[in-house]
């Protein structure tokens, strides 16, 4: 199998995506709303796939099957609860409400929406700062994944730095060109491509296994058949599902998608289609991982199980296509993150704190410069992958999850105050950061800062602390005169 063929497949695929970006550029006008939010005009198919493709990252192809390979396929159930049920409900409870408010008041970012009601530049900056803190290393990890995957696919012909750099340049090109519309369209292409690749791989391998004695049942390792066991305790599964589902809603690239639906009908249809998409993608992807264990394959050092399984059962060109699918997954997450990161930076940090008088045209240019700077910085970081950044990236979902409940309270409870929000957002972040980076502290056998609280993870415990702080502090403080509760509860119709 020549590296040339593999590189050509990946390159051909990227050219198609770039073409889509160029078409999107031609229909995008030069306003922030159009650049960041595609003029709030996405239809069901595009919104569904762009959000889904954005959610997925490389986990579906690599991390997920790896987990199913080493610990069993129960992660399927975690995904079902997380993305099928909880994210669907949050899509409605947080997303629909944000959509209504965004439409009524023209919000482009979460920080903007909160800053407006609570009359607080500090809150706006805090939310943006916290978001960029967790987002930056997460983008870096995607670039690391892309570099590693290309290096493995070409047996080292394309070195790590070149692979990661190439992907970065490519993303910069179409994100700078076409903004949200280009990202959403390429995401749709990438999402459909991923889904097809997973099913082709599944059908191919399942039929090969079915032809062997014992059928596909024999490929499921005996120790994986029973529900639970090993790392899978009920608290652990629930913590993961809850922490990640809430975290996802506050990831800038997902949260911003709450603003982009064309109509209520689009939001309704997307809402009902979540669980369907979850079954279609994760069940086959994770079963493949467990089957690889059952047929006795070995995980390569620092590598991934899915390419090994494909190499065993399918021809090389097909494995290259699947790796292109995985790259698609990484890019469709990273491109959106770059765009959202840039919008948080320009709208919630630069504009309010540095240059309040920036003109629309200047901001438009600045947003694109922001994309280039953000992407280049994460690329440089990916060459060194400092340990601290890796741990921040790996705990990013938990970090974002801390924002969800204070935001939910603000969206639904009239008596929320600015002090309550600052306490809830700041306090929960502080707690979570200490559990991730600080020392483990027990007082009288009770965990204060630890990896687990009676089986529950710190992300979920921090969420509870954030909720209590937001509600508690709001209850004992009064709203400042600069707060304007009516923007959430009266104008939005």
């Amino acid at each position, binding site marked *: 199998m020549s590296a040339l063929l593999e590189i050509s497949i990946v390159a051909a695929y990227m050219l198609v995506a770039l073409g889509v970006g160029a078409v999107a550029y031609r229909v995008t006008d030069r306003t922030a709303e159009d650049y960041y939010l595609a003029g709030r005009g996405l239809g069901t198919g595009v919104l569904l796939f762009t959000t889904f493709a954005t959610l997925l990252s490389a986990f579906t192809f690599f991390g997920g099957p790896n987990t199913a390979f080493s610990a069993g*396929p129960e992660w*399927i*159930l*975690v995904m*079902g*609860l997380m993305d*099928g*049920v*909880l994210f*669907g*409900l949050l899509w*409605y*409870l947080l997303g*629909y*409400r944000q959509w*209504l408010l965004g439409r009524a008041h023209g919000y482009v970012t979460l920080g903007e929406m909160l800053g407006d009601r609570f009359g607080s530049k500090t809150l706006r900056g805090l939310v943006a700062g916290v978001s960029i803190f967790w987002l930056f290393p997460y983008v870096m990890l995607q670039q690391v994944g892309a570099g590693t995957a290309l290096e493995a696919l070409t047996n080292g012909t394309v070195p790590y730095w070149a692979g990661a750099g190439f992907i970065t340049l490519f993303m910069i090109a179409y994100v700078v060109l076409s903004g949200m519309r280009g990202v959403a369209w390429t995401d749709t292409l990438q999402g459909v491509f991923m889904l097809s690749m997973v099913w082709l791989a599944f059908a191919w391998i399942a039929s090969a296994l*079915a032809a062997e004695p014992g*059928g*596909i*049942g024999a490929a*499921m390792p*005996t120790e*994986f*058949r*029973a*529900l*639970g*066991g090993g790392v899978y305790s*009920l608290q652990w*599964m*629930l913590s993961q*599902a809850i922490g990640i589902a809430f975290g996802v809603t506050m990831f800038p690239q997902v949260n911003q998608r709450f603003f982009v639906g064309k109509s*209520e009908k689009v939001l*309704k*249809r997307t*809402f*009902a*289609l*979540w*669980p*369907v998409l*979850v*079954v279609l993608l994760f*069940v086959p992807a994770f*079963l493949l991982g467990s089957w690889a264990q059952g047929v006795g394959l070995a995980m390569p050092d620092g590598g991934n199980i899915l390419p090994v399984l494909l190499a065993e059962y399918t021809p090389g060109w097909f494995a290259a296509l699947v790796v292109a699918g995985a790259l698609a997954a990484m890019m469709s997450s990273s491109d959106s993150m770059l765009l959202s990161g840039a919008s948080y930076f320009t709208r919630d940090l630069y504009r309010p704190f540095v240059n309040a008088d920036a003109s629309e045209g200047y901001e438009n240019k600045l947003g694109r410069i922001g994309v280039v700077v953000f992407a280049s910085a994460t690329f440089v970081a990916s060459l060194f992958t400092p340990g601290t950044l890796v741990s921040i990236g790996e705990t990013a979902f938990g970090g974002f999850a801390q924002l969800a409940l204070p935001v939910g309270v603000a969206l639904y409870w009239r008596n929320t105050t600015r002090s309550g929000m600052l306490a809830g957002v700041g306090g929960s972040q502080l707690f979570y950061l200490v559990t991730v980076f600080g020392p483990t502290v027990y007082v009288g056998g009770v965990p204060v800062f630890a990896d687990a609280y009676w089986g529950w993870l710190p992300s979920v415990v921090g969420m509870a602390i954030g909720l209590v702080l937001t509600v508690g502090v709001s209850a004992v403080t009064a709203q400042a005169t600069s707060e304007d509760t009516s923007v959430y*509860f009266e104008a*939005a*119709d």
Partner: protein
Amino acid sequence: MPSRSALGWGIVFVVLVALAIPWFLWNDASMVAGLPVWVWWHVGWMVVTAAAFAAFARRDWGTFAGVAK
């Protein structure tokens, strides 16, 4: 005072969440058509969830997040 539809859908959503992980099948290792039985539960439950979400979106979309029109 929550409306009847809010109460009804609230219960439906809680049940959808509560049974997404079939804890009553914990440690059950039976296989159906080559896959663990709980994988089939998952597939079925996602279909049920999608149907419930669709019905909610069609009939009572404004129940919780809506604003008075």
